[in-house]
Structures are given as structure tokens and as C-alpha cells.
């Protein structure tokens, strides 16, 4: 028998469970978090979600595309039913 130690950090016991994924976007509030690198793309995405799928979209802008959103912005986005974010600039 060999004994060794786990190299990973344990999952938080108090981690907030993810929200239930809605069946459709009809009437759903969406936080669309953007870094304004490509505003036409984000506007197009907003239009599609609003006109084709009936979502209620609110745009939030993070100050940098290469750093995490501030805590207040994350808390704001968490008020919505769904949040759309990007990673990996």
C-alpha cells in the first residue's frame, strides 16, 4: 500500500450551486458581459438574442479584456437569469 497527498485544492463546501439552465431564452434576463473589443459583434449577438429568442438583454462592460471582471460587476451579472461571458483574449 502506498499513501500520498492530494495536490489539488478541495472544492469549497459553501460554493453557490449553479442556477438552473432555462429551457429557452424567451423572457429570460441575460447579462451580456463585454470588453468592447468588438462592439459590432456583441451588438449583433444582443440583437439575435432579443429579436429571435425574446431575451431581455442588459450589457455590462468590464474594464479590461485580459483581467477578471470587478466583484461588483460579477455580482451585478449574477442578478440575471443567464450571463454570457468570454475568456481567453
Amino acid at each position, binding site marked *: *500500500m*502506498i*499513501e*500520498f*497527498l*492530494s*495536490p*489539488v*485544492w*478541495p472544492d469549497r463546501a459553501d460554493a453557490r450551486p449553479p442556477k438552473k439552465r432555462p429551457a429557452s431564452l424567451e423572457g429570460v434576463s441575460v447579462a451580456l458581459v463585454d*470588453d*468592447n*473589443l*468588438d462592439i459590432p459583434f456583441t451588438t449583433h449577438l444582443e440583437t439575435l438574442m432579443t429579436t429571435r429568442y425574446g431575451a431581455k438583454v442588459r450589457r455590462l462592460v468590464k*474594464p*479590461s*479584456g*485580459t*483581467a*477578471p471582471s470587478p466583484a461588483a460587476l460579477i455580482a451585478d451579472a449574477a442578478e440575471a437569469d443567464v450571463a454570457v461571458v468570454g*475568456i*481567453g*483574449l
Partner: protein
Amino acid sequence: MNLISERVTADDYDEAIELFYDRHWTDGLPVVLPTPKRVQALIDYVKREPQESLGAIPPKGGQATIEKLAINAVMGGCRPEHFPVVIAAIEAMLDPAHNLNGVLQTTHMCVSLVIVNGPIARALGINSRDGVFGNGYRGNGAIGRGVRLALWNLGGAVPWDTDKATMSHPGEYAFCIAEEEEDNPWRPLHVERGCPEGSSAVTVFACEGPHSTFCYGTPEEMLHVLTDTMCALGNNNLHVLGQTLVVLNPLNAEEFAKRGWSKDDVRRYLWEHARRPIGDVRACGVVHEQFRKMERDAGRYPLRWDLDNPTTRVPITARPEDIHIAIAGGRSYFAAVLPGWGGFGGFAVTRRIP
């Protein structure tokens, strides 16, 4: 022993090795098993409280406790005497200037290089000479991999999840060198960056892999080649500034010094001449323009270059000081250029090793 990590058991060595793969606790290579005895030896060596944390490693926020760092360092092959270097490297990477969160998740291929300076580099046999970015030396391999495994297991940016690197490079397994200080006419990198003479330190800098640079001859001939390599259109630096690293071999440095060039003379020449006409830069396309605009809007791209003037030659960094120069490698024909991520981060940070 005050070790609180979960204890895991396996019937034999083979089963243990496979368990690390099954749980995604390794980077793709087998590991040294982090037994409590091995981990304790590293902690005893540095005489630090096991539950002391250097901070949360992004993006998933696992705490870089001395215990967790020791576990990952053992897995990478570190002996106790390697562990202070691993700790200092993680401390440096957690400095906000390095923007580790971005470095670990960007689509760019940058990886945080660890450069070790001072007596500890020689004592630990960390290679600074022929084949410096290659294999064959335990210090480079074990420290480099111990650091990477800590980022892997505590930060949790993995390529099928939030590590979005389009290409990445082999430095993701281990990326650690020493600077050559004996065969070097100039002050060592860490002393330039504020550490006392005779001290030991690490400098981390997020960069691409080394670009070979056929660099031999007079100072003017060497600079001609270096400047061309540094301002390739594919580099982020040319579009969004940031920092870059030039590694000259000891013979290069000797040739410069014999002709009266200081390291700062070389740095300034490189900054003034590693430039491209704005027309070349514009021809790269609209996306590159958008990135530059984003950097200007964020206040990270100085306005002192008139980008609407067709005679403007665009620099690769905002200031000469953002060109880092280190001495390493064999006495031969080749230098290396390691472009950075750009103005987004990955900037060089230096930390003393106690």
C-alpha cells in the same frame, strides 16, 4: 506532521501513477509520488508554516499554501533544496503586474519563464550555458515542472477548459533557466532589477518560446539581426507593446563589451531600431487595429506615436526598459528572442530567494 491534504492510497506504484492520470492531477507525464515523507522534507527545509498561503492561484483560486506547493514540487521532481526557488517563482507570478489570470487563459502562447540568478543557481546546478532552454538538467526540469504543476493543480487552467492557448508551447511542461553570471561582462539581471550583488532571485516573464537568432559578428551586425527578429509582424509586441526578452549568449555579450557597449547601450539601440513602418503594421488587418485601439482606450498604449503619419515607425515596447536582456547559452552563433504577450500583462517580476 501538520499536513492536512487529503491522503490517497493505492495498492502499488503502477496503480498510483494511473490514479494521477485518472484524476487529471498531472500534466501528461508521470509524476514522483508526493508521499507525506517527501512533502514534509521540503517543508522542513524552508522552515515555513505548511498552511501559510502565498495567495489564490487563478483562475479557479486554489490556495498556494506551502503544503500544496511542496506536494506539487515533489511531483515535479524537486529535492528540498529546489523548493525555495519554486516558492519565490510562485510569489513573483502572483504579483498583479504579472496578470497570471490572463497569462494562464489567453489565446496567445505565452508561458511564464522562470529565470534564476545568484549563488543558488550554481549551487543547484541550474543550467545557464549550452542548451539552456533544453533538457538534461534536474534543476531546470524539476523546478520548472514543479512550478507548472502547482499552476495546473491549484489554478486549474487546463487546455480542455479555461486555458485557451491556441498553440501554447513546450514550456508548459517546464520553463526554467539560470542566467550565466560568471561568463558575463555585465551586471546580472536581478541586480539590474534592484536586488543586491551576491543575492539570489527569480525573475518571471510570460513569453513565447525562444526564437533562434543567427547572431554573430560585430555589434552592428548582431544588432541588425536582433532588431529584425524582434519586430516580426506576428509578434504581439509590435501591435500592442508590452515587454520582450532578448537572451544573448556569453560570446555575444563579450563582443559587445569589448567594443565598449554597455547593456543599456544595447537595449536603447534595440528599442530605437526594432521598429516597422506603420504601413507594414496596418497591412496586418483590422483586428490588429482593434487590439491597438483597445490598448489605447485602456491607457496602455502611449499616444506619442502618430499612427496617422505614414512615416511613423512603430516600436515594440513603450520604453527601452521594457526590453529585458539576459545572458545565457553556449559561446556560439545564436541568440534568442522571446516576445511577450503584449500590453495585457505577463510583465517581468523579480523576487529574492531567502
